[in-house]
Every structure is written in C-alpha cells, then in structure tokens.
C-alpha cells in the first residue's frame, strides 16, 4: 500500500452501524505517515469497524504508555525505536558517541527497557497490546567496522531480544515478528535520514507501510483455523499407494521426497497444538492402515481422527468429518494435490480454505507450510488444546454407547461417571473462557460478544463474577466447556452472558450449572439477559424444557421453580475458587 492509496482508503465511507475500534499508537517519533498507514491497513482488514487511531506525546514513549487512559481505547500499538532506549541511538541527538559514552548508553538503554516493560505489563492488565521492537539500523557509533559486531552493539541487541521474550509471555501482549518484516522491508531501505532530520519521521514510506500492515494483522488477530483435512497420495507421502504399495510410498531425502516428510512433521506439530487432523483419501482402507503402521511414518495415526478412506466424493468425506468434529467449514483447511478435488470440495463448502498441495515444487511446499502456520497459529496452547482430540474421540464413543443402549435415559447418564468442576475466579488471562464466550453460537444466552478490553473491564467490576465449568466422564475429558458471567444483587443473580460448548450437550451440565449458582450464592432468583438469536436454538430448547413454554426476554427462574423442573443430576461436583 502506498501513501496515496492509504489516504484514499481513509476517505471511504464507513457503515453507519460500524463498531468503533479505538487504537492508541504510541511511538517516540512523530507518527505522521505511520498513523495514516496503520489506520488504512486496519480499515482494509476490518471493514465493519470504525477505526480511530490516536497518538500520544512524541519523544516520550514510556511516558505516553504510562499516562494512557486505557478506558478510552481498545488496543495499544507500541512502536519502539532505538532512540527510545537512549536518544544517542538515534540521529537527531548530539549527545555524544565517544568511546566513554558507550557503556553509559547501554546502561541507560537498560533503564529505559525496565521502565517500558513495567508500563507495558501494567497496560496489559487492561487492554491488548501489540509491540514492534526496533526496526531501524543502529547508527555507526560503535568502534568496530560496521561489518563486525562489537560488544556494546551485541549487548543492546541482546537487551532488546530479552525484553521481547519477556513481555511475549504476557497473554495480552503480542510482539511483532521481525522475520516477515525483513521479508517485506529490507533492512537497508528503512531509514529515511532527510525525513528524520527535517520532519522527525524516520521511516521510508514502504517501511512505514510494512510495519503498519503487520501491526494491523497483529491487532486484528484473526481466529485460527481448528481443523485440517489432508489427502494422502502425493500429499502426505509421495507416490500412489494403490500402485506402488506400502513400501513404495516415500517421504525422504534419498528418494527426493523429503518435503512430504516435512509436511507430515508439520501436521504433527499442528496436532500437538490442538489442531484437528483428518484424512480424506480415495484409497484402499487396508493399505492405508498398513501405511500408517510403517515405523518411519512421521505423522502418527493417533494424531488423525477420523480417517475417511473410500471411493466416494471428497465433499462427502469433508461433510462427515465436520460432523464428527462439530465445527463449521470456515474453521477448516482442506489440502489435496488434485486441483479437481480441491475445486469439488470448495464448491460444496465455499467458506472452507481449500488449497492444492504443490506437485514436486519444494519452494512452493515451503511457502505452503508458512501459509498454514499463519492460518493455524495461536498465541497460547491451552489445556483444552491438548485434550481436544481425546474429547472428540470420547464424544464419538459416547454416541456409539448411546446408540447401543438405545436411549439417553437417566440410567445412561448415571453410568457415564461424569464429574463437573466449577471454577469461580475472575482471571482475565483465562483465554479459553474468553474464546468460548466469543465463538459459541448455539448455547448462547444472547449472542453478545466481548472485546478484550470489555472482557477485562467486566471482570474488574467488583460486583461481577465469572464461573467456568470443566467436564469429564468415563468416555474422556471435555475440558472447559461452559462460561457464565453474572452479578449478585442481594438474593438475586443476574446472568449477563452464558455459553456452553456444543460438545457438552445432552449431559445436563446446564442444569447442574444453575443448581450450583443457586447453592453457591444462596440465591432465590436468577434473572437472565436472554435474547433469541438465529443460532441459539439449543439454548431456547433448554429454557422451553424448564419453563414449559418458549422463553421471552427478561427471563427469570425462582429457586423453587427450578428445583421442581430440573431433571435428575448424576454428576460429581467440585468447586474451585481462584482469587
């Protein structure tokens, strides 16, 4: 994007009902075109938002962050340059580059980093923060020739790297990766000396646009994909299994098929991070099972569920896989070496990301792996990520058991040996609870979504509470599956948000949740901020079952009415209080 395009994008009309996204851009230099580019890149990515970029005082980066009124913005974007650590590391200062100054520069940079880190950690308790570490070349102030890295220069680089690693552990802080920035903006073409000296803006325009584009992506933080459906022949391995047999397929250096091994390794990495992996292959089931028994197979069969191996259409396989996973096509990537199969699945599921696996093109496979990391990458690997596949297998086992027993009666639920752990504690860092609130549609009290900032503001209110529920039965753990936000008002409880994962349906977790609330807070009544949405049918059915009639707004239950209508509950219940 060039500047004229950015200015033109910002002139375009914003929908009247656009939700505002207020971004505070903190940088030590005059933000000028960086502000323009950031607003334009955000606008381009988030068409339904009204983007507002505000800036603070120039020349005092840490002070700007410290003074920031976080209630007035949704996201903080911080762009650090070397001169923010010590003005002598920029070119506008004439504070001295003598050899005797160098230790003092490193010392003051350490102090500046400490102050910045404190300010960022404080800010991160209220709003999400995206940080860009120094991108400009260091000036030639060191005594070594520029081709040689000297002690002080390396100390400064180490300081910044340690700083970045340290703050990246905060769940609310996202640090911009320098590697894609290097690819977009070569280091030698970043510093604009005349502009820095005459206007206080140190970036060449393409560099400003590159930083702004990556920051906008970091701010938008798209929801990662959840599942990957892969083909086998000439994709997971090289060769056609039905033609060359189990020993004829390969993924190694000797047969020049190593990129398929890298692809397998990559899928193993995704699986370990909680991504669901399934196979959709037109193949012989027995042969495929034998292939996965090969000792040198990189991707374990334990990481794959389900296997759809037959001669029917791939779109039918994809349909069954989505049903098993219980997720929508928009959350899934389909990969196949046949452009025809890719087109067939894409036609059936337009929302699904369908990608052709490159044929004998190592560089293209490498690029594919990078693209997939962007599609599946996530900030934090949660406990739920580690048990997702197990819980889906468990749900499959439960369905099968029900099919065998023929009903969903009390007897069956009693025999499930279920336990629920209710946790009360307002942990703003509970990313799973936040994620559930913002992605659950079917069992959702009112469809309301919360921004990161609104989530933290809600939890900081002393009158509110957060209850989460984790479920496990003999078929396996489901992890954290329900989130409830509410407030206590005397003998009444007001529920503002309530969501439950569809994985936990038909287990009476919702009934046990309300029972728990009545008991925990000794409440006589629960009020619900209920609203029917096009997708919360399961929640409406739950209320209809309890009320004997479809729910209306301003919904409430008395303790007595609930007790009289709640079915038998067989869970073992545990309560945990955090904080």
């Amino acid at each position, binding site marked *: 994007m060039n500047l*004229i395009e950015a*200015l*033109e994008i910002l002139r375009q009309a914003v929908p009247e009902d656009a939700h505002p996204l207020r971004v505070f851009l903190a940088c030590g230099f005059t933000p000028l*075109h960086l502000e323009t580019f950031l607003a334009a890149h955000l606008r381009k990515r988030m068409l339904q938002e009204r983007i507002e970029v505000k800036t603070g005082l120039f020349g005092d980066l840490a002070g700007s962050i410290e003074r920031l009124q976080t209630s007035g913005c949704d996201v903080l974007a911080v762009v650090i340059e070397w001169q923010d650590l010590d003005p002598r590391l920029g070119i506008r200062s004439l504070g001295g580059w003598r050899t005797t100054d160098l230790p003092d520069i490193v010392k003051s940079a350490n102090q500046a980093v400490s102050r910045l880190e404190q300010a960022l950690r404080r800010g991160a308790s209220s709003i999400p923060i995206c940080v860009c570490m120094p991108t400009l070349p260091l000036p030639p102030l060191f005594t070594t020739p520029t081709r040689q890295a000297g002690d002080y220069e390396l100390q400064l680089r180490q300081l910044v790297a340690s700083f970045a690693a340290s703050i990246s552990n905060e769940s609310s802080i996202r640090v911009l990766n320098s590697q894609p920035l290097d690819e977009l903006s070569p280091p030698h073409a970043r510093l604009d000396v005349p502009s820095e000296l*005459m*206007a206080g*803006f140190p970036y060449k325009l393409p560099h400003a646009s590159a930083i702004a584009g990556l920051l906008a992506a970091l701010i938008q933080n798209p929801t990662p994909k959840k599942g990957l459906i892969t083909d086998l022949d000439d994709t997971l391995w090289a060769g056609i299994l039905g033609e060359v047999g189990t020993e004829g397929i390969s993924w190694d250096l000797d047969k020049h098929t190593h990129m398929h091994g890298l692809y397998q390794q990559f899928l193993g990495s995704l699986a370990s991070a909680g991504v669901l992996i399934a196979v959709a292959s037109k193949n012989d089931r027995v042969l495929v099972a034998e292939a996965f028994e090969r000792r040198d197979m990189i991707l374990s069969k334990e990481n794959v569920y389900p296997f759809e191996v037959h001669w029917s259409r791939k779109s039918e396989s994809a349909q069954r896989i989505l049903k098993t996973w219980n997720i929508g096509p928009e959350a899934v990537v389909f990969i196949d070496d046949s452009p025809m199969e890719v087109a067939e699945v894409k036609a059936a599921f337009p929302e699904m990301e369908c990608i052709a696996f490159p044929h004998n093109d190592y560089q293209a496979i490498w690029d594919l792996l990078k693209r997939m990391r962007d599609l599946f990458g996530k900030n934090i690997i949660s406990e739920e990520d580690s048990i997702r596949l197990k819980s889906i297998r468990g749900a499959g086992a439960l369905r099968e058991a029900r099919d065998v027993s023929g009903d969903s009666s009390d007897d069956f639920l009693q025999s499930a040996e279920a336990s629920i752990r209710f946790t009360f504690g307002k942990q703003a860092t509970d990313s799973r609870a936040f994620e559930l609130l913002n992605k659950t549609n079917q069992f959702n009290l009112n469809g309301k979504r919360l921004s990161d900032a609104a989530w933290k503001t809600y939890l900081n209110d002393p009158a509110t509470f957060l209850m989460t529920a984790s479920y496990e039965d003999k078929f396996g753990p489901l992890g954290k599956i329900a989130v409830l936000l509410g407030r206590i008002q005397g003998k009444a409880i007001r529920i503002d948000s309530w969501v439950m994962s569809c994985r936990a349906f038909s287990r009476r977790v919702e009934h046990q949740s309300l029972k728990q609330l009545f008991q925990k807070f000794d409440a006589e009544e629960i009020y619900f901020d209920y609203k029917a949405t096009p997708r919360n049918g399961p929640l409406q059915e739950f209320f209809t079952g309890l009320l004997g009639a479809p729910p209306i707004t301003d919904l409430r239950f008395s303790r007595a009415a609930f007790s009289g209508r709640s079915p038998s509950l067989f869970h073992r219940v545990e309560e945990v209080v955090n904080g």
Partner: protein
Amino acid sequence: MDEVESRLIRCFSSVFPDLTAEQIRAVSVESVPAWDSLAAVTLVAVLQEEFGLQINLIDLPELVSFAGVQNYVRKHKSAS
C-alpha cells in the same frame, strides 16, 4: 488535462479530500486553511511516491500552490 496534471490532482485530492479538481488547480497555502505543516509534509511524501522524486524539504517554499508544485514536478521529473 495531461497525465502529469491528472496525477497531481489525484495527489492533492488525497491530501485535501474536500476540494474539487477545479478548486485544486487554483489552490495555494493562503487559500486553504487545511494546508498546514502536516499537510505539507504529507503532500511532499505523496508527490515523492507518485512521481519517484526525492524532494528536499528545503524546497518547500517553492511548493506552496498547485501551480508551484506543477512547475517543480515538471522540472524535476524531466531532470530525473
């Protein structure tokens, strides 16, 4: 209107979106309150990008009207 003039009008229009093409042709620092130092720096950046010029900021006094900018761009574009 030749190609340079139409590209110049696009540049000015991106910085001063409220002006029509006709108004832009007659525009100057005195006639447009929005032409402040920030707008001047933005206009220079847009011109550099659009015409591949390296405009020295000490040349800013020449760039105080559409006519002045047009002269400057034509002179330096042909020189580059």
